[in-house]
């Protein structure tokens, strides 16, 4: 006689400790096995795209800060690239270097959070998360020195950056660069070879390369599936073509690979900062840009490789002081497309870590 069980529906979220914000999943469970999930969005829909249509080009930068709030500098960067493309603004050399340094530092900070949160989801009781938060704190210190805020920096401007680096910035960055590799080794010692982590994450939530491409996945998740695609290499923006760095990939595309991928990317970011620190010239940091920008009629798509994937701003201008339409390509939202196929057939505990390994920010999903 076959024993039949009835599936039951569990609402995970919108307030759940491991949904990284206010994200909700309707999970259909059969015992502990996930039969299907349906993500439900919108609990943080703040109408950023609508607000952007009513603001000046400079006034949108504070909005982008709050988009993916753990990588604000990168959001500023992507937006400024799009505006510069639209209005044809040339950025001074020093500003380009500052942008690269800042954006790579921010990448490290955001990836630290991603890795820490993933390990926390695995149940490591905050320890790796707090260690990585301590390192993020060192980076945030540097950002605070530069921009005066700890989370919403509002530092980049169309045509450069708002102020030059303070003179104590580069020595402090030097210290950080000397310190960071040691800490990264320490994290590796903490959990990288841990048997329990390997047992939990290896082979779990495999995302094949074809499906990743079909689902428009980008960023570390795509590269962990073995696709060598990094916008910094394949479509170099700003001055990324001057730096020598690798694009690491992982073979299997499971949760453990995604975790390793992020750690490897942090090391590559350190390499880029090292080179940028050596080459940084002196000079102006802000191009002569009018207070209110009137770009010509047209459209532009500026994209960068942000810690979560391809972050793009699609701006349509009608020659007024505000964009006619400002679309944001949110990597977090699009990366979630594959979640459903990845978790089916796994257990509730695996659902949590697969979800954690995708690394989302709800502010960016819902906008």
């Amino acid at each position, binding site marked *: 006689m076959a024993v039949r069980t009835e599936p039951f529906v569990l609402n995970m979220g919108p307030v759940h400790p491991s949904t990284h914000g206010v994200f909700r999943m309707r999970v259909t469970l059969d015992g502990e096995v996930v039969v299907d999930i349906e993500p439900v*969005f*919108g609990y943080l829909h703040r109408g950023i795209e*609508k607000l952007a249509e009513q603001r000046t080009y400079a006034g949108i930068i504070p909005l982008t800060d709050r988009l993916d709030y753990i990588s604000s500098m990168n959001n500023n960067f992507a937006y400024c690239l799009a505006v510069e493309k639209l209005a044809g603004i040339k950025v001074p050399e020093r500003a380009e270097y500052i942008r690269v340094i800042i954006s790579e530092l921010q990448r490290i900070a955001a990836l630290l959070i991603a890795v820490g949160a993933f390990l926390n989801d695995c149940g490591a009781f905050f320890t790796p998360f707090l260690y990585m938060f301590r390192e993020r704190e060192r980076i945030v210190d540097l950002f605070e020195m530069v921009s005066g805020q700890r989370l919403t920096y509002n530092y980049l401007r169309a045509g450069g950056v708002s102020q030059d680096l303070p003179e104590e910035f580069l020595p402090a960055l030097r210290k950080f660069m000397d310190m960071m590799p040691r800490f990264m080794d320490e994290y590796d010692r903490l959990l990288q070879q841990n048997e329990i982590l390997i047992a939990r994450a290896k082979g779990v939530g495999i995302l094949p390369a074809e499906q990743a491409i079909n689902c428009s996945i980008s960023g570390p998740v795509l590269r962990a599936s073995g696709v060598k695609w990094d916008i910094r290499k394949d479509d170099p923006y700003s001055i990324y073509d001057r730096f020598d760095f690798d694009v690491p990939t992982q073979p299997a595309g499971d949760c453990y690979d995604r975790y390793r991928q992020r750690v490897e990317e942090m090391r590559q970011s350190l390499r880029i900062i090292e080179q940028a620190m050596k080459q940084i010239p002196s000079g102006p940091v802000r191009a002569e840009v009018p207070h209110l920008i009137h770009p010509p009629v047209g459209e532009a798509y500026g994209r960068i490789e942000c810690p979560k994937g391809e972050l793009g701003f699609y701006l349509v201008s009608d020659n007024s002081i505000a964009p006619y339409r400002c679309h944001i390509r949110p990597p977090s*939202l699009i990366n*979630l*497309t594959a979640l459903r196929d990845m978790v089916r057939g796994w257990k509730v505990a695996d659902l949590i870590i697969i979800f954690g390994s995708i690394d989302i920010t709800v502010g960016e999903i819902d906008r």
Partner: protein
Amino acid sequence: MTVALSGKEVAGKIEEKFPGSVVESGPDNLVVKVDSLLDIARFLKEADGLEFNYLNFVTAVDYYDHFAVAYRLSSLKHNHSLTVKARCYDRENPALPSVTGLWQGADFQEREIYDLFGIRFEGHPNLKRIFLWEGFEGHPLRKDFI
């Protein structure tokens, strides 16, 4: 470096296969007719030399008299990109074919457009509001929404 393919060249290729389906072609974009959108999308995804296997984003712009739905496609193999647009003139009940069958990544984005612009995507498996709640009146990103 990602090469932005000339819309005109691609338009020529499409015209060979589906005559009369391209409305307009610019230096890096292409406006196609709504009826043949799905066929062209399939052609762009599968044709040799094009192989747009990656959908960067789908979005819509409200131009009062019509909605322009823009698909940005790129090919990870050849590293080139193209923006394909379709215009939707019906304001009361705009509709387009859904491309989720070709690029699964369009799933949530089409729902988003449905939610914020009110454009229906025929053939989408689960077309309902994504960010706002059921019973919300109007579509916020339309220009006439207050």
